[in-house]
């Protein structure tokens, strides 16, 4: 079963949920798909034992063969090529690696070289969780190829938890698109609600079942999220209370379930609930 943890907004507690859920169940693989700022490592203290570079292709122009026809410059949608005094300049950072310039050059003057886009790192973490981290190199724009590569590391014999990038843009979609279930993490504030709605809309469009976890829950504010979920028939699977102690543990990179065994049971229960929803869906298909 593949569960993706997401949130419309950053800072709601996605990392908290991913880590604590992974530590509460057995036979689990945890993937950090928040490749711009992978943070699970601060809670898992991984000793990385494998590292793989992810590459993308960048054009290289043979200036001798080039006749300055400019077809490549005019074709490129990203302004990654320019022609200055009969020489074609390539700007790798904004190149999208579509391969178009190479195909369009009438003189076959363009070849491609590899450029490192990011890395995948593996660790068997401190808590015996099988962990893969995706990292996008600074200056690179596109997270999606790193996330695609990360997903190829999925162990089909394990239950998978994927920590996605916050928001609802392409990198988040790539992380969740072939999952069985989405755990939407939110906080009981107008910000949390506003961004939860975006995430819920995305999940509806992708037709993937989902439920909500309220982090920093408080008796007086939970209604902000609860009312919305009730009206829209969305399950609230867990409420993690607002506690100064939790904020301190978080700041130190200590997973809550390590200090509060009771919470482990709650996360196990969440997992079971998700399992039954997914099983039912697969059964009725």
């Amino acid at each position, binding site marked *: 079963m593949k569960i993706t943890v997401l949130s419309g907004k950053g800072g709601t507690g996605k990392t908290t949920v991913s880590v604590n859920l992974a530590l509460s169940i057995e036979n689990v693989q945890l993937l950090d798909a928040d490749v711009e700022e992978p943070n699970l490592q601060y809670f898992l203290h991984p000793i990385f034992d494998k590292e793989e570079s992810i590459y993308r292709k960048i054009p290289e122009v043979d200036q001798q063969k080039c006749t300055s026809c400019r077809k490549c*410059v005019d074709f490129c949608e*990203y*302004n*990654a090529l*320019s*022609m*200055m*005094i009969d*020489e074609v*300049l390539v*700007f790798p*950072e*904004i190149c999208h690696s579509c391969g178009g310039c190479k195909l369009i050059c009438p003189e076959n003057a363009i070849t491609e070289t590899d450029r490192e886009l990011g890395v995948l790192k593996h660790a068997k973490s401190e808590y015996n969780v099988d962990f893969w981290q995706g990292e996008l190199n600074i200056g690179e*724009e596109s997270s999606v190829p790193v996330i695609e590569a990360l997903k190829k590391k999925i162990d089909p014999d394990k239950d998978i938890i994927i920590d996605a990038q916050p928001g609802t843009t392409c990198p988040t979609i790539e992380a969740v698109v072939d999952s069985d279930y989405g755990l939407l993490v939110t906080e009981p504030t107008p910000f949390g609600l506003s961004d939860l709605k975006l995430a819920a809309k995305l999940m509806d469009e992708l037709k993937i079942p989902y439920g909500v976890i309220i982090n920093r829950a408080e008796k007086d504010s939970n209604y902000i999220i609860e009312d919305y979920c009730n009206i829209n028939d969305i399950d609230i699977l867990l409420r993690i209370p607002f506690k100064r102690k939790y904020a301190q543990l978080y700041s130190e990179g200590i997973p809550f379930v390590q200090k509060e065994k009771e919470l482990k049971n709650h996360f196990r229960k969440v997992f079971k609930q998700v399992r039954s929803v997914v099983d039912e869906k697969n059964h009725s298909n």
Partner: protein
Amino acid sequence: MKIAVTAENNNGFESKVNTHFGRAPYFAVVDTETDNIELIKNEAANASGGAGVSAAQLIADRGVDVLISGSVGPKAYTALSSGNIEMYIIQQGTVREAVDSFKGDKLSQLNSPNGTPRK
């Protein structure tokens, strides 16, 4: 020679100078020999990315020798340097003032991208 000045608006020599190169709304291209001025809309400003590169291509294609602007990003800087286009800095004023200051040797040259030093 031909000088391009990044401009806010389309008002001939009285156009206000705009400080950032890639997404400036207009370029005022001035021929110093004839004092002829042409205000071109910067189509590059609409680009999602690489606006600076596209803007550099735009002015290079017009045979511009000198660019006067407030700041130039790293990619645009590389492109303009490759095109042997010299870059000078101006922060405010009109196109007329920019050209006159340039002619009077009053402007500092840009030697690296985003040249304004930290204050």
